[in-house]
């Protein structure tokens, strides 16, 4: 029974982190139709910035804010000064599909190299702001701590804010319109280029949050979030790649599948489980679980 409760709780907190990364990927995909491999690098970079802030101030909370804000700024800068010029120049042919993605891969390498140059490649660590000791249930200590709870609360809060932004504000409407139809958005007078940059900024902020919440349980090194990028990507595809709620649900599904298979069957199943879930979902619903409906009838 305790094992089951533990599995549920850790599924939630793992899934929440995967969801953050998935949301970052979906935000960029929706706004520019790019799969942003650099997201792992951006998130690590902002986490290193957070790490430096902790060194200077001793405060995880100030570091968290700085990481999220710098994540947004870095995302915006990448879109404005790196991706936008590429899109302006590469306009037709099959290269249009592949060039931006390859560019983000290159960017990932560049960012990781810069991190190595500035901070070195040895493992660093960030101490969690609250206890990482597991709670006690019926006399046994379980693998779910105050810190895991904090992660859940933060992810829920971030999801809520993002949903309100998208559904209740003018900026959210501009973000949605530009994602679904950049052309109609432009013809309606919406500055789609700026809206795209905003999408990258939001994604960067989510990546920054993901890094600061994920790293305290692990180590910080230039490739620290590569695995999380892959899981976030899988979660995003499970959710249909277009939908923010889908990304969240995809992250949670992945969290439960991975934790339950590794808890009850074998710890070796971590990676296979992720891909098995992905393949099952794609076989049953090729467009993902939460792909948006477009037209009436067929």
């Amino acid at each position, binding site marked *: 029974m305790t094992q089951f409760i533990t599995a549920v709780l850790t599924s939630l907190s793992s899934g929440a982190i995967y969801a953050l990364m998935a949301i970052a990927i979906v935000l960029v995909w929706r706004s520019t139709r790019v799969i942003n491999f650099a997201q792992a690098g951006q998130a690590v970079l902002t986490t290193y910035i957070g790490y430096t802030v902790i060194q200077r101030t001793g405060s995880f909370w100030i570091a968290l804010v700085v990481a999220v804000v710098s994540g947004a700024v870095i995302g915006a800068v990448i879109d404005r000064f790196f991706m936008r010029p590429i899109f302006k120049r590469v306009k*037709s042919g099959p290269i249009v599909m592949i060039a931006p993605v390859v560019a983000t891969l290159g960017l990932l390498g560049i960012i990781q190299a810069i991190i190595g140059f500035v901070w070195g490649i040895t493992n660093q660590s960030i101490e969690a702001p609250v206890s990482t000791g597991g709670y006690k249930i019926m006399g046994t200590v379980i693998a779910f701590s105050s810190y895991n709870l904090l992660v859940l609360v933060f992810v829920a809060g971030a999801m809520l804010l993002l949903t309100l932004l998208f559904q209740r504000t*003018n900026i959210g*409407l*501009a973000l*949605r*319109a530009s994602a*679904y*139809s950049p*052309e*109609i*958005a*432009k*013809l*309606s*007078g*919406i*500055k*789609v280029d700026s809206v795209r940059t905003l999408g990258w900024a939001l994604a960067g902020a989510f990546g920054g949050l993901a890094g600061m919440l994920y790293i305290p349980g692990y180590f910080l090194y230039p490739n620290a979030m590569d695995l999380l990028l892959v899981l976030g990507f899988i979660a995003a595809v499970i959710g249909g790649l277009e939908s923010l709620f889908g990304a969240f649900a995809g992250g949670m599904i992945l969290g439960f599948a991975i934790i339950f298979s590794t808890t009850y069957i074998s710890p070796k199943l971590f990676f296979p489980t992720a891909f098995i879930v992905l393949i099952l979902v794609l076989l049953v619903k090729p467009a993902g679980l939460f792909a*948006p*409906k*477009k*037209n*009436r009838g067929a």
Partner: protein
Amino acid sequence: MSLIVEGLTIDHGAIRAINNVSFKVPQGQLAAVIGSNGAGKTTLLRTLSGLKEASSGSATWNASPILGKRAEDLARSGIMHVSDGKSVIAELSVKDNLALTGLWRKDKKDVKAATNEVVELFPILGQRMSQSAGSLSGGERQMLAIGRALIARPKLLLLDEPSLGLAPLIVEQIFQTIKSFVKSMNLTVVLVEQNAMGALKIADQGIVLNLGSVVLIDSAEKLLNDPAVRSAYLGF
């Protein structure tokens, strides 16, 4: 106050879609650009609204140049393009579709007034506000696309085949509605159509386009009565 197009040439790679086209639409007039499929009508409008680059020539609206400006800036300056294919965003609600052209406008009171006018013009939209635009019929989508443009309080309206794919009765209704609001709002309009008859009936001026070149420009009335035009484009 007028739209002046001079020597406009537009290419799609090696394909010349518009070849040395010139015409003028005075303020408050409706020009119908007619021509068969592939004549270059859509390409012409896409260039006038900033979606596509021209190869050479010029286009000015109220003496300020159009070419080289961004689509969103032209839209904000009062040039509204209702593109082909009943341009609505299927995933958004009718209400959200209508809201798009009001997002950037400073005068929120007038956005509200304009929205009310559009709902008066197309009452069906008022009943469908919370439905997704994708659930609308073809005619309703066309009304939504036009309504969205009108909420921007445009001065120059570019309409791409509003009648395409609609039932004859709806086509007649759409043309009559266009005619009525164009007059009451004092709009300048370029109406692109394969339905030459329907378009010329509500137009002041007719421009006949064939394979990217202008073959005839005259008053709509004269074109409607021209035997050559009748046999070539009107089918009787």
